[in-house]
């Protein structure tokens, strides 16, 4: 469980100062997100390199606390 994972130019980050544990990210993409101790975490075994980034970005956008940042440049 991590708060940041990356693969090449891609990265996903969860900001625990903002995360308030709604678990919407986990509901949207349980392969990547998990919730423990009322905070969202990233699964270390997620294959970000071959992920559909549109799906990742949609899950990130579901966060009402804007706690998830996705970079894909």
């Amino acid at each position, binding site marked *: 469980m991590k708060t940041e994972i990356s693969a090449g130019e891609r990265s996903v980050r969860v900001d625990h100062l903002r995360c*308030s544990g709604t678990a*919407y990210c986990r509901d949207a993409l349980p392969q990547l997100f998990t*919730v423990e101790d009322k905070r969202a975490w990233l699964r270390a075994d997620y294959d970000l390199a071959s992920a559909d980034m549109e799906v990742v970005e949609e899950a990130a956008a579901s966060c009402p606390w804007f706690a998830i940042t996705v970079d894909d440049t």
Partner: protein
Amino acid sequence: MGETRELWSELASERERCPVTKLADMNATRVTSYAGVKQLLRDTASFSNRFGTVDPGDEELPRDDQILAFADPPRHGRQRKLLVAALSASRVEHLRSSMQATVDRLMHTIVAGDRTEFGLVAELASPFPAHVTAELMGVPHELRDKFVHFSHLAELASGMPGVYDEELREWSDIIEELVRERRAAGPEANDDLITTMCFAEVDGEHLSEREVAQMVVLVNEAGNTTTTTLITNIAYALDEFPAQKVLFLADIDELVESVIEEGLRYDGPIQGLGRKALCPADLAGYHIPKGEKVFGSYAAANHDPDVYDRPDEFVVGRDWRQTPSHMGFGHGIHHCLGANVARMEAKVALTSLYKRLPGLRVKPGFEPVAVPGQIFRGWTELQMCFDRPGAEA
């Protein structure tokens, strides 16, 4: 204690008949299934907040009034981003000690002399969140009582539209004056939510004074009476389910957080809110015409037997890590901004009350009166009693 159960069974039979039901009001529909309410709240492209949510009107609200809960994307996201950092779960931790101090002060009066009863709403559940909000906003001490008074009007006004317009306008003026003062004082002069809002940039522009004032009104209305009701409804529910109360009292520290989540599910402060269909849409397999007012019943969603085991029972030990999240704070991008503040307020209040007042219970024979209106669900007062000796401030 029949009144609450009656609502659950009414909503249950409506859900069974049809979870998307046309109401007597010609252009309104009510959604009563968990899945349906979730879809309503997620599909912000079809279902709008900017016509109002208590009773969505025919026209969009004036631009300056399209604030947070009354705004749609992308405007909503820009506004909300300004506030999330100040109200996140980690950030509200710093309010804990001042919350405890406020509760301690209120409880001092509750146990004074040889008292054995008190009004839960008037003496704790109402003044407490109002003081917390005032502190968060940086409201000057001399205005706090007025602030507390005005915050109640929202609840009353929702049941009696028009009656309190003049007082609500006066309140609005006071807040606009406060906002002007903070803006004049500059970004460094104060560390409070009003200052944060005054100087936050949205796409390179500041919010107008009117927009900030509207946000203050909204945060206050949305944050105070709701928390009052959350605390009060939990006290009521614990007495409805004595066996659950025994479990709670045996391990308050361990169970208080799940009791609060269960309170939000079982009998949350907001029964439901409305949206306006911007286009013809499909909702849980039913056709919704353009212009329709669609009310999502949070109360019904929270009692959906497809989602919750023993839905009409107050169960203190539900494992919320394994249970789908309740709709007590709504769902989706408008998820209650004050959720973290409210959770902490409820935790501080309930822990202090039930640890320090032995035998705390609704006064036998007391008949509570429901708050009027279709939106709020709570009691105007809940007279409580407790045993002496053993009571501590």
